[in-house]
């Protein structure tokens, strides 16, 4: 407990029920349960989507283990310390992003990775956390709703990483980072009038953005608007994904019976399109159950945000909660054909390490916020 006191301002002792092990470990049991449930589903679906490749499952399980440990470690860090670290992390993240632009490794047409020899790192993942932390930290100390001057700075903080990542190009992550930033602004209470104006301007800017997009991004949007136009080219993903989901029906074909994935008609079946496999095997009922788990996680996180006692914690937890849900929404919207294919994984279920670690760290932050609450009663 001593090291807490050193960093906490102004005074502080934390709410602790005696014998509450979760509290002591800085773990939120509800979130932990839901997250473990989701991870188990991930392993189960991967078993089928990954063509019964057990090596794939073991790797995923290992990553989950690492990610949960990372979550646990982060949950120990009190929010004040996180707030203090925010600007440094943000600056580091932006510098690394610039590094990627100049020295990054190109994978699938995009520069996203920094290779440090022994491991590869995506700075954009760091910014998924650092950007909302920075903006929340910046606005937390200001008058809320924020004044125009502060809004301008906050917007710049959002724009820098968003544009740098969009330039890689990684539209999916750029959207998520922008969302996390905007969520902070929204929770900070920017006026509805301003929101209306921004949406109007955004609408007007659409043609300009269109011109700035790269060929393959435009193609994705065009394909999204009419996938049947190019059934063997870019529309193939969406068509096969819809076939998988639609053929699942209400009850699904049963676990390990996704013919679309097993016969390799569905591309990226263990990563971005894993939801389609789940939908094919477990049907509409399974999908509703899965969405409910996500919704419960979101609700728990937003509950924690509401319960949080300082502005920074609130804004950050709320933003992370929303980002998590937007993650899900963009992925499911993409595989069901109501959003363009932007390359966002299904949070905590898709195969892949980096985003999973980032996501669980964000839950570590939320748990930290939940478990480091001050005692109000005293």
């Amino acid at each position, binding site marked *: 407990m001593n090291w807490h006191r050193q960093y906490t301002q*102004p005074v502080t002792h934390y709410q602790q029920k005696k014998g509450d092990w979760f509290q002591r470990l800085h773990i939120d049991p509800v979130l932990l349960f839901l997250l473990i449930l989701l991870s188990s589903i991930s392993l189960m679906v991967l078993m089928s989507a990954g063509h019964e490749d057990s090596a794939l499952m073991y790797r995923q399980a290992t990553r989950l283990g690492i990610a949960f440990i990372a979550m646990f470690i982060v949950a120990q860090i009190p929010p004040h310390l996180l707030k203090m670290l925010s600007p440094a992390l943000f600056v580091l993240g932006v510098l690394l992003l610039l590094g990627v632009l100049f020295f990054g490794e190109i994978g699938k047409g995009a520069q996203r990775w920094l290779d440090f020899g022994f491991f590869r790192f995506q700075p954009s993942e760091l910014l998924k956390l650092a950007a909302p932390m920075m903006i929340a930290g910046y606005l937390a*100390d200001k008058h809320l709703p924020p004044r125009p001057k502060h809004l301008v700075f906050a917007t710049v903080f959002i724009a820098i990483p968003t544009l740098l990542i969009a330039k890689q190009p990684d539209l999916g992550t750029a959207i998520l980072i922008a969302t996390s930033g905007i969520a902070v602004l929204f929770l900070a209470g920017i006026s509805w009038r301003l929101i209306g104006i921004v949406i109007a301007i955004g609408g007007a800017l659409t043609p300009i953005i269109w011109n700035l997009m790269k060929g393959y991004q435009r193609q994705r949007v065009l394909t999204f608007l009419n996938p049947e136009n190019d059934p063997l080219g870019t529309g193939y993903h969406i068509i*096969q994904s819809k076939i998988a*989901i639609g*053929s699942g029906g209400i009850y699904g074909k049963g676990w390990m019976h996704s*013919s679309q994935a097993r*016969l390799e008609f569905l591309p990226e079946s263990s990563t971005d399109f894993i939801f389609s496999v789940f939908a094919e095997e477990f049907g509409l009922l399974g999908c509703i159950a899965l969405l409910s788990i996500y919704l419960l996680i979101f609700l728990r996180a937003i509950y924690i945000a*509401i319960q949080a006692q300082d502005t920074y914690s609130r804004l950050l937890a709320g933003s992370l909660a929303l980002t998590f849900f937007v993650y899900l929404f963009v992925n499911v919207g993409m595989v069901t*054909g109501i959003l363009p294919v932007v390359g966002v994984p299904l949070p905590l279920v898709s195969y892949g390490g980096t985003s999973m670690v980032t996501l669980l760290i964000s839950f570590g932050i939320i748990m930290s916020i939940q478990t480091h609450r001050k005692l109000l009663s005293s």
Partner: protein
Amino acid sequence: MQANFDLKNLPQENRLFLSRAVTLILFVVLLSLALITRLSYLQIETHDKYADLAQENRVNLSVVTPVRGLIFDSNGQVLAENIPSYSLELTPEQINDLPLTIERLRQIIPITDRDVKRFQRKRKQNKRFNSTPLRTRLSEEEVAIFAVNRLRFPGVDIEARLLRHYPYPKLTSHVVGYVGAINEKELKEIDPTNYRGSRFIGKTGLEKTYEAELHGQVGYQQTENTAQGRSIKVLNNTPPISGTDLTLNIDIELQRIAYQALGDFTGAVVAIDTKNGAVKALVSKPGFNTNLFVQGIDQKSYNDLQSSKKRPLFNRFLRGQYPPGSTLKPFIGLAGLDYGVANAEQHTYCPGYYQLPKQSHKYRDWKKSGHGRMNLHDSIVQSCDVYFYDLAHQLEIDRMHHFLSQFGFGHTTGIDITGEKSGLLPSKKWKRRVHNQTWYPGETLIAGIGQGFNLTTPLQLAHATSIIANKGHARKPVIVSHLNQRPIIQIPSDTTSVELKKPHYWDEMINALLDVTKSARGTARRPMEGTPYNVAGKTGTAQVFSIKQDEEYDEENTVHHLKDHALFIAFAPVKEPQLSVAVIVENGGHGGSVAAPIARAIFDHFIKESSPTP
């Protein structure tokens, strides 16, 4: 930090945050409902459509082409077989740089520009994950060269496919025929189900006639395939039924002897087993390399075959219609006997020409000086034309037509091969119908020596000869004897029967035909000298063009293609006939000297073969 804290209105901030958080929750619930709506639409509303599409994706119906039936000769020699042919096939999906791959393949295996062009054309019709042949008919050496370099060429493979092959292409060109790629017209006629996956169809000869038997029944395999087309599991398997093997009556050895005996001449030879109508040899010379047609003949070779003066593509034994010339005389003679117009005792004087009453036109005998006093026997032996002019004159054309028609002249024999021509047996009615002209008595005379309008195919001649050999009846000629080793049973109605008023007329005629090869003045004595069996035969010489009244046929100075056709019909042995033969040597000159030796070669082989004790 601390300083800013004072400016904040915490309770108001709390309320603001709470309202915003609730807004977010509503927003998120709305989005969730949107997703569930979308999922319900896909999984309930359009479920059937997508379930069908998934099934289509999953189950792949592949066609298993039946193996085409083989064709054997009477001794089990293979006349048509299926041999694996190696082709170099490319799967575009698995190849990154197609032009470069082709360029690199060219460095190790010869590939022409034509191959590449054909490949590009076919590639567009195929799916990306299907392989398309770039080079066909690779030699073993080329296969080996590629095998060594295979690792350098992902997406390139050697495929073995069965290709029709004819071991005796020239000998069997017109009997066996050939298969070729199915064309547009054939596509409309065939059963599309049974021919799914079939690339070839019989184009001519037995390959065409027995297409239904040879082709077999297509098989199916339902497999679960990956998107790349790899089969994972067989769901349902209906194996194909291989085509029926044909065994022919043809003896390829006899066929070869006949073909070789024709030498440099063009012509046709038909040999029929008199006992059962089994066709032992069917030759049309020249033949051609039928193997060229299997994979599509190139334009130049085809043009060469088309324009060749020897007309190799022409099926002479089946579709060649020749004036029978003097080979028709035995049948006219029999007509004379049967109608009581001629008898053994009755003589006619031959001065070397014949004149109809009150007409100045002289109908010439081939022997300018004349044969002198002639009866039927001598007229057959020496082939006296004048005797037959007179006989024809007395018989008149319609009686001749009626009688000869019983021997199969003027209509097809019904042999089991498509495309048979009927020849022409003239009558008054025919001339009225076709030429809208009255019949002239002079035309009857010409018809009496097998010239004029008369046309017969070599097959008809051999069949008619069988009828004489068997004294009135003969079975329809048949080429195929067994289907899958099971004999084809002939039905009785396939037998022709000619009844004469007196059976000894047959003997009289057969005696005369025997003397053609035996007596000192017989027209075929020399070629049949020293045979261990007796041959009854008749020579013939068919005019290709008519000689004007005062002109003389000058054999030496007539250009080859206007020379007379040489004919010979015969059967042997006379007592118990085994084989009847008809030979036509185009522009060969005299039947006795050119056509008869060919028949002799066939008899020598066949009779020695079938009766080991001479």
